């Protein structure tokens, strides 16, 4: 199916040919993406790096916890800050994946910036060649991919938020002596909390993947939009050549 186009009037051809002006500008979304992609990539990388450092410290704490016999470890409440260790284990994966999500969001915005540059350069070339400047009306996939990216980042932010809430519960539960945790009777609040921690963990990891899936869908659709634009540019050149020979 042929793409629908919109014709843009050429105002100052000399300025376009000399590179001082552009025949058209990027869309609002593309302009925002061209400013934000670096921020998202840097923020995402920083979050992942901080997660790694926190992971090292948590690893050291776990190592210290296992520096004593099982009997000693399980008898004392919050032995070697075990509650804190378990709290960190609850929120750290969500935090780390939020960082990865921001980086994938940054990649999606880079692709939107590429699309913006294709739009501007395509319009400039058409104007410079003395032809009518025709631009494709963004197809549905071009409108959907930024939404997918946002849904992905929001899902991963929600996962992180749930992880933070869960860490409070995990800190409380594992702040008790492990022997008490193991002996929690049926119907007790402690056992209910243990059940909640394990139940939430069972669906929280698939939810992380759901967020990633939204982000990958956004990237795939952005790439598909680039294909559509490149093919439009090729067909427009052939069309202009046909107009010249007619």
């Amino acid at each position: 199916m042929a793409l629908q186009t919109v014709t843009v009037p050429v105002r100052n051809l000399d300025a376009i040919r000399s590179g001082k002006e552009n025949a058209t500008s990027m869309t609002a979304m593309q302009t925002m993406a061209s400013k934000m992609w670096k921020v998202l990539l840097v923020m995402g990388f920083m979050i992942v790096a901080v997660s790694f450092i926190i992971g090292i410290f948590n690893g050291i704490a776990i190592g210290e916890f296992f520096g004593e016999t099982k009997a000693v470890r399980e008898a004392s409440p919050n032995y070697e800050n075990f509650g804190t260790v378990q709290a960190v284990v609850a929120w750290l994966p969500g935090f780390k994946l939020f960082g990865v999500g921001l980086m994938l969001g940054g990649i999606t915005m880079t692709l939107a910036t590429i699309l913006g540059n294709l739009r501007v350069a395509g319009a400039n070339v058409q104007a410079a060649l003395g032809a009518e400047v025709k631009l494709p009306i963004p197809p549905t996939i071009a409108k959907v991919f930024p939404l997918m990216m946002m849904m992905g980042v929001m899902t991963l932010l929600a996962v992180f938020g749930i992880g933070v809430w869960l860490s409070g519960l995990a800190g409380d539960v594992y702040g008790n002596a492990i022997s008490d945790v193991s002996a929690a009777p049926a119907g007790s609040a402690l056992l209910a909390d243990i059940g909640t921690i394990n139940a939430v963990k069972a669906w929280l990891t698939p939810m992380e993947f759901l967020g990633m899936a939204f982000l990958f869908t956004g990237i795939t659709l952005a790439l598909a939009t680039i294909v559509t634009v490149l093919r439009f540019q090729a067909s427009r050149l052939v069309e202009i050549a046909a107009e010249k020979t007619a």
Partner: protein
Amino acid sequence: MVSADLQRRVNGSEPALKNVGYALMLVGMMIIVAAFVIGIALGLSTADLFENSKSVRDSAAVGDSILSQQGTIAATAAWLTPFKFIGLSSFLGGIGIMLLVIINSLKLRGEAMLQSLPIILGIDQKSAE
């Protein structure tokens, strides 16, 4: 004159390979959504299991529903992670195919420039040679 073959290719339908990219993306999304739904079911089953104290769970006898439930939860968790990664792989396959289609589209645009620009700019190709 732009060749008829090039005209057919630039004005024809989008490459079939692009649809393969879409298909892989959809398969990936379906797998991840299925994994999420299974995860919710696993969470409900886990919550149900943890209504029993540890001593009851640990002393469950063969044939006991609690033991069977523990087995199901552990077995499902074991295959659910690789299943989710199949979904992610499907997405990455789709992205790889889309990049391949971009390479082909860049080649097509290059061909269009090669044949169209001399005509548009009025350059005699034979004298240029």
